[in-house]
């Protein structure tokens, strides 16, 4: 009992081969698109590796790049096979390769599906990387004269301006670290000395934020310093003021940006996976239909195409049997080699 048998006459076979040829070349285009998506994601991750501690995982973009290249290679090969399938002479040279090629295609489709799943599931690891990276970035904000960290201020400022965010979880993160370098503190001022003395670690902490946290949509000029002191500014209540600074934390902003990027890439990869599965099924039908041509002299005759020669359970049993035979023949060969006698095939 063959699985999903379909009758094919000459015209149908030709149409199938032509349709598959077109689909394969479209699939090469899709492979190029996946390659460029992977490249784009890799570049975006590299651009902001400073705030991710340089320890972000490049697994998703790397696998997208590899899958894109493999898809191009396999599908152009399949296109060539479909083109030759209509000519019995040319098809004869491809015949022995088709079965292993189909097996490789099935494995490739499984791998592509796994990559699609990864696109949707990588969110968690990115979140923890971002939390650590941003914390360190803010810690090194003031070290503009330390080689290796002198660019951190510029990076964080440009990040906060571009992604419209402030701090790690919110603007209050800036109250807990010293983001003004000692070089620019006037140690002769009483106020500075008081603040440093009142802090356990001798740090100069202020209830202020850098300028890049300012929200341009605010109706009043930006209030950056003495944020919790209502009396320092006219007509200001820090509990109800919403538009003065960006409310989002940069971790949430970056996470949502990368999540949306990876989700859309996952969606595109899923569509390409469905397309590839269709192509593999079509190729299998073409293979079995051409195998089933009983009389090679008469190309006009009808033939049958199927997915599996027997039903699924029988095919699985036969597959296990052939594996066992392979194992047995190896065992017997090994014994024969020991005993110095030629074994009989099992």
């Amino acid at each position, binding site marked *: 009992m063959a699985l999903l048998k379909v009758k094919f006459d000459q015209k149908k076979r030709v149409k199938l081969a032509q349709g598959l040829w077109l689909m394969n070349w479209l699939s090469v285009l899709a492979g190029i698109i996946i390659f460029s998506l992977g490249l784009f994601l890799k570049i975006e991750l590299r651009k902001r590796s400073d705030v991710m501690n340089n320890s972000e995982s490049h697994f998703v973009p790397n696998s997208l790049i590899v899958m894109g290249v493999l898809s191009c290679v396999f599908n152009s090969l399949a296109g060539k096979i479909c083109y030759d399938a209509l000519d019995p002479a040319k098809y004869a040279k491809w015949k022995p390769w088709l079965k292993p090629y189909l097996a490789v295609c099935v494995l490739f489709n499984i791998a592509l599906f796994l990559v699609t799943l990864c696109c949707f599931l990588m969110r968690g690891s990115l979140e923890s990387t971002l939390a650590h990276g941003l914390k360190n970035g803010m810690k090194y904000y003031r070290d503009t004269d330390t080689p290796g960290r002198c660019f951190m201020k510029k990076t964080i400022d440009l990040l906060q301006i571009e992604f419209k965010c402030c701090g790690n979880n919110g603007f209050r993160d800036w109250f807990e670290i010293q983001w003004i370098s000692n070089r620019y503190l006037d140690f002769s001022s009483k106020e500075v000395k008081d603040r440093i003395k009142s802090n356990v670690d001798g740090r100069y902490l202020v209830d202020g934020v850098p*300028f890049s946290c300012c929200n341009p949509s605010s109706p009043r*000029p930006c209030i950056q310093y003495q944020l919790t002191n209502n009396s320092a500014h006219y007509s200001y209540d820090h509990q109800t003021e919403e538009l003065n600074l960006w409310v989002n934390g940069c971790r949430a902003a970056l996470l949502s940006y990368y999540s949306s990027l990876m989700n859309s890439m996952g969606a595109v990869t899923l569509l390409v996976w469905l397309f590839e599965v269709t192509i593999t099924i079509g190729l299998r039908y073409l293979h079995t239909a051409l195998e089933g041509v009983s009389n090679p002299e008469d190309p006009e005759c009808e033939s049958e195409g199927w997915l599996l020669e027997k039903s699924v359970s029988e095919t699985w049993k036969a597959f296990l049997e052939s594996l066992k035979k392979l194992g047995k023949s190896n065992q017997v060969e090994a014994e024969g080699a020991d005993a110095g006698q030629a074994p009989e095939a099992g």
Partner: protein
Amino acid sequence: MAPVLPLVLPLQPRIRLAQGLWLLSWLLALAGGLTLLCSGHLLVQLWHLSTFLAPSCPFAILPQVALAAGTVALGTGLVGAGASRASLDAAQYRPWRKVLSPLLVAGTAAGGGLLVFALGLTLALPGSLDTGLEEGLGTALAHYKDTEVPGHCHAKRLLDELQLRHHCCGRHGYKDWFGVQWVSSRYLDPSDQDVVDRIQSNVEGLYLIDGVPFSCCNPHSPRPCLQSRLSDPHAHPLFDPRQPSLNLWTQGCHAALLGHLQSLASTLGSTLTVTFMLQILVLLGLRYLQTALEGLGGVIDGEGEAQGYLFPSGLKDMLKTAWLQGGVAHRPAPEEAPAEEEPPKEGLPEA
């Protein structure tokens, strides 16, 4: 009556002409598409910057005319591709025979005219940007504080975003902010003596300070941004004299925007030039192909003399025939000239 600029076209050169024309037409269509994209981009940029350009500035006409010219060029390219492809097959060329003449006239008049006009505008208009931007930015600076006045409530946000994106401060420099009241009176404490002193010491009662908004800050500065008391040398005693320019953006927004828009206009100008040259070539080629095929009866490999020309007779003769044609319609007096002009008149509707 000698035809103008005749060209003998045997079979092979005719076919070559048709093929070359097909390629050129697709190139023209591509150039027309590029012009459309460039002018569309410029229009979008101008729409975003409309607050900072005085409404009287005529600069916006340039991308609109370029858009029209690009559309006509695209159309000409597509028509040329279709006609040259059809000319290789006698059956396909038949419907084109009637349509080609008016299309050529329309293409020359509309396309050529629009392209020349657009090129002229590209050279003349960027000069008007200077005054337009000057006025527009001045208005925006004056209305920075008016966040609750309908009609100007977006000036603050737009100006802040402009300064952040284009890395500029003020009109020509950060000192422009010292001459404008950019802190709204709503947020000024009337009981604060300093505020009262400042307002009273100013002739117009404005609250002017030597400070700038946060959007002027330069993120590349090694120290946290100094925004207030910028003209007081003792206010920030540790201000690094070696890097005074890193604290705020040094460029004025006038220069920044002018450079940005002028580079966009020059890109548009170069695409227009390329489109113009391609359009001339395509129109000339089409005319020669058409007149050569007319001489053969509409078949590219037909028998007969194959001569292509621009006009069947010189300009003076064409005007004379047109004048006499009009004269025959009014006066029935038989003249020899119109009778002789009859056969060449056939060429006239095509020209």
